[in-house]
């Protein structure tokens, strides 16, 4: 009885389910939020191109019924840059994790933001390397434990949404998986924003982050999130001590700026009589 199935299933490659994600992993929730966001942004589903790197979150495109490019570790944004420039009609979305985007792929991330290229990057930040077994990531909070930080990490974490905003993105926001409706709205806004858009979703990894940091079940993790989330607007009224260990959510950039691919198109128009030709590889002569 098809009516009794989750409405999201019809956009997934159902023959590949269930997903490889652990029970209670936030990635599945973000898949739903994304599909809802696509719908609310009124995008043509067939026009989506999903790109990802390596890591748990990067498996998302493999489950969504859409053109998808599952690439190398950290490099998804550079593949997406080529894809978008080559065919600017596509709605290119990058799914990435904290390690993928901010560690090995940090350079691509800030440069894509600097260019303000019209990509939507959804970064599922679970503060840990899940696929390789719980090593600390560039966003692991100071003092948190991982398999490579058995005594607690002393590294300072990146503040991704702010980093990307500072690097020049025209849209940047952070939410948690618990704030699903905010995530949906942000994804919608990001998809509609004609520039580089970054949505960071703080997500739960009960298997590794949770187990190593005394938050054993998905529910433990998500209730921790619930109790430690602060809206960006509240920040000025709180003391430094009150803000310690808090997840600050909200929008960090939402502006209009010239967009990279549009500039390339303009250049092409000024030097020839048209925008770059699409699907030129299939032409028999030039």
């Amino acid at each position: 009885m098809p009516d009794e199935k989750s409405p999201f299933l019809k956009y997934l490659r159902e023959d590949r389910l269930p997903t490889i994600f652990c029970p209670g992993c936030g990635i599945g929730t973000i898949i739903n939020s994304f599909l809802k966001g696509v719908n609310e942004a009124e995008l043509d589903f067939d026009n989506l191109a999903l790109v990802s790197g390596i890591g748990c979150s990067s498996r998302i495109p493999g489950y969504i019924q859409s053109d998808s490019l599952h690439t190398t570790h950290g490099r998804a944004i550079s593949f997406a840059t080529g894809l978008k420039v080559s065919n600017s009609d596509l709605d290119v979305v990058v799914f990435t994790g904290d390690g993928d985007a901010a560690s090995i792929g940090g350079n691509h991330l800030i440069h894509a933001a600097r260019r303000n290229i019209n990509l939507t990057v959804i970064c599922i930040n679970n503060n840990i390397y899940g696929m390789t077994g719980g090593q600390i990531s560039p966003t692991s909070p100071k003092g948190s434990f991982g398999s490579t930080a058995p005594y607690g990490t002393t590294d300072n974490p990146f503040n991704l949404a702010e980093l990307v905003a500072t690097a020049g993105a025209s849209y940047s926001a952070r939410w948690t998986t618990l704030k699903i409706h905010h995530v949906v709205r942000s994804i919608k806004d990001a998809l509609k924003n004609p520039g580089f858009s970054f949505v960071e979703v703080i997500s739960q990894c009960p298997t590794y982050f949770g187990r190593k940091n005394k938050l054993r079940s998905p529910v433990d993790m998500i209730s921790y999130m619930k109790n430690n989330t602060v809206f960006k607007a509240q920040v000025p009224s709180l003391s430094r001590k009150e803000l310690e260990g808090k997840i600050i959510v909200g929008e960090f950039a939402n502006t209009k700026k010239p967009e990279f691919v549009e500039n390339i198109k303009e250049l092409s128009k000024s030097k020839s009589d048209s925008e770059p030709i699409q699907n030129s590889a299939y032409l028999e002569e030039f």
Partner: protein
Amino acid sequence: MINIDEDLCKGCHLCVFICYKNVYAVSLKPNKKGVLLPYPKFEKECTKCGDCELMCPDQAIDVDIETHWWVKEKDSKFNPNFNNKKES
């Protein structure tokens, strides 16, 4: 009506946590996959807000929403591709 797909549910119980009406309860006996399935014990309390459906990481929950829910009502109007995906 709330439906939980037993093949997809991995037993994380986020639905139980997120439901503000406490509709869900957890079964005491594991199913054949070893999962303690949630079930809508107090279904008459359900307001059909759909949060559990949206939250469920494994697309295992279907809340039968006739008017409020986004997919069933709206998609056919403004986004034909979205709706016809599976038929093509």
